């Protein structure tokens, strides 16, 4: 049933073998083939640009007012590549191995290996486009380290790496728009995929300015629509991030894989109150130089700077001496929760821990700068002043952001941080070619499931988005389209387009006609609370069963009680949001079902019933060494398909960061 189409041969040769033998489409035929790309983040923009360059006729869609605003832009810390520019022992194999291990042995080995292989091309491509990565005085590229890893392989542009990479891809995309190879549709939202004779042949979308529904044909459809973290209401995602396109595809036959693999990022600015609309991440790169601690005394109410060194518990350094503050995200998040739950949390809500830069500011940077300036025996004031300058250059924008939000100056007092929903490793099931279980329908970047297993390591989301868009899909899509060259564009008057549009129209009008008493936002908040409390950082069977029931009744209530102001045929942000929240509610149920089914702990999925004596995640490879790919069979009804995972090179072991 599930054919992952992994090429034959040894792991390290699979991709080159595949590329050497894959079907090609000649340039004249490419011009006759139309491709729809939904979403213009790193995966979508790079795919649309690269396919346009190849000569395909591309239509790209985004819900924002410009493709440059996709949420990839907010990624801060960096992008990994196995360049080994630091001579510290890095290699394609190590990047591959770290990613598999970091993902707690729940990713597909062949995809992850390919990701590590193309990582080096990504950096070259981005430099050629003019992405202004951080550099050394030599003029060469600089690197920093990231969690879960013992080498320095992360390329970055201050704390704005995602922005710079996206602008590179956006510019490449706009160049193709100017050349007439790509047609860009902004403020458009995909509301269904059109399937004809078992193949994806187009989409129905809503023009968010006029409210009109539009039909678009494509020989194939690429979904590059990002993750579904906003199912938790509060997350580091942008307000508009949603699962709608992926969910529509799911309901039309695309399997949804490992939805319970959601990542809680350890270093985010804590919640302040019920008004909170989103959470802001403080890049993981800060853990390079920031030390995480809580007071040794429970319910300590002293200010951070009044707590002497010997009364601080650097609990990550204590529990994980080998990796210290650089343990993977899932481990760091759970450790923070554990300390706060045990009564050691800080700040007014006690749901926070400190991230403190003072030690490295003085000892690492201050001393190095003093030595560069030839200052012997520098006093504390000098060290702090010099250290601040370096920290400002490395993380200035993050420190400013923190101060704007909290009103506190992190150069003077430690940051307060707490885990928050950040990334979703689960997503549409795809084969090696990134095709979903619907022919001709592809999923790229965060919206697919394949590369990160149960936990994503830092600086690898940007890598995957660009790998899929620049270097994977341009090859793999040809293997499908080579057999489609004789297919003439199907007129959008075809009955399948007609039926799909009618279904979308009916759904919108039923939403508008509910005319209830509760706002869309209130339902979204309630869904988020259920998900965070019962399917968040730690999960158990009892809570999950309750969550499923609660979500089902929330769904009923939503469809009876929601109030959407305004009209259908106009710009109506409340209607857009209602349609997305309705899909999130359905997804929420599936996430809990998947979390319940997976009675083991792995990566970001921590089942309380399955832990070691020391409270670490305990996998059950004998029962769960598979991808759970859910097939939609009608309301509240899913069938579980399993793709067994085989590990040729990276043999599963208990992860150990001690």
């Amino acid at each position, binding site marked *: 049933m599930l054919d992952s189409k992994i090429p034959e041969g040894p792991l390290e040769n699979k991709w080159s073998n595949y590329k050497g033998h894959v079907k090609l489409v000649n340039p004249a035929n490419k011009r006759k083939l139309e491709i729809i790309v939904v979403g213009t983040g790193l995966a979508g923009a790079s795919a649309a640009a*690269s396919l346009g360059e190849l000569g395909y006729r591309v239509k790209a869609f985004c819900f924002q*007012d*410009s493709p*440059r*605003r*996709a*949420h990839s832009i*907010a990624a801060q810390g960096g992008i990994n590549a196995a*360049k080994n*520019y630091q001579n510290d022992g890095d290699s394609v194999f190590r990047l591959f191995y770290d990613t598999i291990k970091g993902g707690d042995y729940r990713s597909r080995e062949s995809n992850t290996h390919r990701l590590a292989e193309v990582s080096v091309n990504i*950096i070259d*491509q981005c*430099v*050629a*486009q*003019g992405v*202004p990565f*951080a*550099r050394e*005085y030599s*003029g*060469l*590229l600089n690197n920093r380290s990231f969690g879960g890893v013992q080498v320095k392989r992360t390329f970055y*542009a201050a704390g704005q790496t995602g*922005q710079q990479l996206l602008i590179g891809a*956006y*510019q490449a995309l*706009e*160049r193709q*728009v*100017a050349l007439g190879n790509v047609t*860009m549709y902004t403020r458009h939202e995909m509301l269904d995929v059109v399937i004809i004779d078992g193949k994806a042949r187009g989409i129905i979308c809503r023009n968010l300015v006029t409210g009109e529904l539009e039909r678009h044909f494509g020989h194939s459809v690429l979904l590059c629509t990002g993750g579904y973290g906003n199912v938790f209401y509060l997350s*580091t995602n*942008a*307000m*508009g991030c949603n699962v709608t396109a992926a969910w529509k595809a799911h309901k039309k036959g695309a399997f949804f894989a490992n939805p319970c693999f959601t990542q809680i990022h350890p270093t985010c600015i804590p919640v*302040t*109150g019920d*008004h909170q*609309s*989103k959470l*802001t*991440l403080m890049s993981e790169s800060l853990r390079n130089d920031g030390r995480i601690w809580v007071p040794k005394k429970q319910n300590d109410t002293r200010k951070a700077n009044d707590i002497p060194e010997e009364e601080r518990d650097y609990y990550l350094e204590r529990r994980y001496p080998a990796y210290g503050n650089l343990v993977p995200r899932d481990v760091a998040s759970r450790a923070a929760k554990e300390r706060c739950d045990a009564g050691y949390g800080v700040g007014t809500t006690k749901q926070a821990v400190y991230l403190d830069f003072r030690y490295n500011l003085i000892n690492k940077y201050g001393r190095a700068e003093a030595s560069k300036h030839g200052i012997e025996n520098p006093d504390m004031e000098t060290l702090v002043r010099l250290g601040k300058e370096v920290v400002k250059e490395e993380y200035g924008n993050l420190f*400013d*952001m923190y101060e*704007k*939000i*909290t*009103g506190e100056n992190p150069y003077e007092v430690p940051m307060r941080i707490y885990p928050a929903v950040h990334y979703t490793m689960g997503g549409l099931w795809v084969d090696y070619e990134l095709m979903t279980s619907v022919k001709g329908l592809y999923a790229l970047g965060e919206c697919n499931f394949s590369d990160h297993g149960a936990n994503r390591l830092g600086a690898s989301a940007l890598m995957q988005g660009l790998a899929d868009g620049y*270097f994977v899909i*341009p090859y793999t899509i040809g293997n499908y389209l080579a057999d489609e060259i004789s297919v003439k564009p199907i007129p959008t008057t075809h009955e399948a387009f007609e039926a799909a549009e009618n279904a979308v129209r009916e759904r919108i009008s039923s939403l508008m006609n509910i005319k209830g008493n509760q*706002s869309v936002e*209130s339902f979204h908040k309630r869904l988020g609370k259920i998900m965070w409390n019962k399917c968040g950082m730690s999960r158990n069977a009892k809570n999950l069963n309750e969550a499923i029931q609660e979500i089902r009744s929330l769904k009923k209530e939503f469809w009876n009680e929601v*109030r959407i*102001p*305004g009209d259908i045929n*106009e*710009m109506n*942000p*409340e209607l857009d949001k209602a349609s997305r929240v309705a899909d999130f509610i359905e997804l929420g149920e599936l996430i809990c079902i998947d979390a319940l089914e997976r009675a083991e702990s792995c990566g970001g999925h921590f089942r309380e019933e399955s832990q070691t004596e020391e409270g670490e995640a305990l996998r059950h490879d004998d029962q769960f060494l598979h991808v759970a790919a859910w097939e939609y069979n009608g309301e509240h009804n899913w069938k579980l398909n399993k793709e067994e995972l085989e590990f040729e090179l990276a043999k599963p072991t208990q992860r150990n960061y001690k």
Partner: protein
Amino acid sequence: MDHYTMNLTLKVWKQKNKSERGHFETYQVTDISSEMSFLEMFDVLNEKLIEENREPIAFDHDCREGICGMCSMYINGRPHGPWHGTTTCQLHMRAFKDGDTVVVEPWRANAFPVIKDLIVDRHAFDRIIQAGGYISVNTGNAVDGNAIPVEKEKADQSFAAAACIGCGACVAACKNSSAMLFVSAKVAHLALLPQGAPEKKSRVLNMVEQMDKEGFGSCTMTEACEAVCPKEISVDYIARLNKEYLSAASLIDK
């Protein structure tokens, strides 16, 4: 930080669509926490309006962490409000006090027509990028990243220009609705790098031509753009743009 709550009077621009005339409408908001962001205050207001069966206010926003460039409110006569180097979404309510009246308008510029309420159409910026705001390199053409060393100082300056988020505050602040800061940031970002050199001349000429076509006004160097830019992009880049433009226009060998 001491937190407090406040009651405010809001005067907000309402406009049904591109063609209809807009007007100011007055709203009262109560119990606003100083810890809220400015947009969260709007969320609270919109929730209240929906509850009262009134039309909520449409505004652009997405990342809410100051980087996507989507939010665009003209607050008390200043794009993005009173804080320096800050987007609307990063502005927090501790910037205001109990009893304040806050006037909120959309960006005002011919090249940015209002779509609805506080939402404007900024496609003109995309079209300026299409005119030449890129390096013409196809995927797969690149040499090794370290084969092109870039002087650190230039790389840093290029990065500072590339930090532009394309929000359009510079245009909104300018009495002539000039887009020179936006265009200069892109021209400088690419001109400062060796990779951008081959297309230096055509890029600047084409981007400036498109800027003029879009109906942005001329630059008279009042520097209002720099004062409100949330990414603190310097008007020095405008000087660089002018230099690039002059040398391209006078030395053009086509």
